[in-house]
């Protein structure tokens, strides 16, 4: 009986050791830069009341959703405050397809299908900014991710990078998030999307910054 018990323990120990060795072997076969690719932090959509926008803007969006026959509205990204905020609202069309709209403090986009959002890329970044043509006081981004994106990183103007936390849509596997920054050193500069194996899928510049070229003081007529 004791011999059987010892044999079982030995087999278990050998199996555990083999597993550990094999795991280590597989890990070392992945390039160093990709080995530590965490997956994007995901959460679920929040109620429509989570949108950071004045009531007039939110009411207008709801009216537009009714006219466009988009139902089941939910918040899939929100940042900032009522004075300068950016949110994403998702809904479902009559055909069941997902649609999304971007909401700022002073207005909102029309509802867009994924085909309209993504332009041959798994990553779509829509930015906005406030200030003047020559200086930026506040900046925001609305980011949309296709299902193949496992992780997304945002590089700021100061060179630092942080992983973003996205909200997964109820169907289709899409995800989205928004960010707002008032400190120029923290304005988003680049957004990078990675696959589950750590491979870089897409990079997109936010193009946030002074819009007039130095040679043209006033570039808006």
């Amino acid at each position, binding site marked *: 009986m004791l011999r059987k018990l010892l044999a079982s323990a030995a087999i278990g120990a050998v199996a555990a050791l083999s597993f550990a060795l094999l795991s280590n072997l597989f890990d070392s076969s992945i390039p160093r830069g990709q080995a530590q690719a965490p997956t994007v932090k995901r959460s679920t959509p929040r109620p429509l009341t989570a949108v950071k926008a004045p009531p007039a803007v939110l009411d207008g969006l709801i009216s537009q959703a009714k006219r466009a026959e988009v139902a089941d509205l939910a918040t899939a990204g929100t940042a900032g405050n009522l004075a300068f905020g950016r949110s994403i609202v998702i809904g479902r069309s009559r055909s069941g397809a997902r649609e999304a709209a971007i909401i700022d403090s002073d207005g909102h986009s029309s509802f867009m299908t994924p085909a309209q959002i993504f332009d041959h890329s798994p990553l779509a970044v829509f930015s906005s900014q406030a200030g003047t043509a020559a200086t930026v006081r506040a900046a925001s981004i609305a980011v949309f991710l296709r299902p193949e994106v496992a992780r997304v990183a945002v590089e700021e103007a100061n060179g630092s990078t942080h992983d973003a936390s996205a909200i997964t849509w109820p169907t289709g596997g899409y995800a989205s998030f928004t960010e707002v920054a008032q400190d120029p050193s923290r304005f988003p500069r680049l957004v990078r999307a990675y696959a589950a194996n750590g491979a870089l899928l897409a990079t997109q510049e936010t193009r946030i910054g002074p819009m007039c*070229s130095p040679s043209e003081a006033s570039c808006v007529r």
Partner: protein
Amino acid sequence: MTLASKRGYTWPTLRQALLRLVFCAVGIAIALAATSHRGFGVLSGAENAYATCATTDYWNVSWCIYNPHTGVTKVRMCCSTTQGTYTVTDPAGYVIKFLHTTGGGTWISAPDVRSGQSWTFYQVAATDKLGCFNSQDVNIWINCRRANA
């Protein structure tokens, strides 16, 4: 004997040539009309038309080639404080910006949009301006419109 028959042209040949001429003229007229009213970026390589941005009843902010980092705005339409803005750009798929500024030129917001999309602005003051801005590094044909919503 007519001049055509003297030179060996027959009536069916002349008629065919005339028909081709008419079709060609109609084609050019349609192309010009499309460009001036609901135009697309058929002149993407042309010189800057910034100084000569035109408007129509429909594209009432502007329709022209925008140089990189230039924009055109117009004071809000009378009289609603809710204004819709709509754009069509050349077919390259570039993102451009809608502009909502104060009369003094402060940018309230400048959201990115793709061709064919619209945006609704709320609480637009009587002196506020709405328009379009080319935030890209290439010339883009932009047709821009604002209207009461």
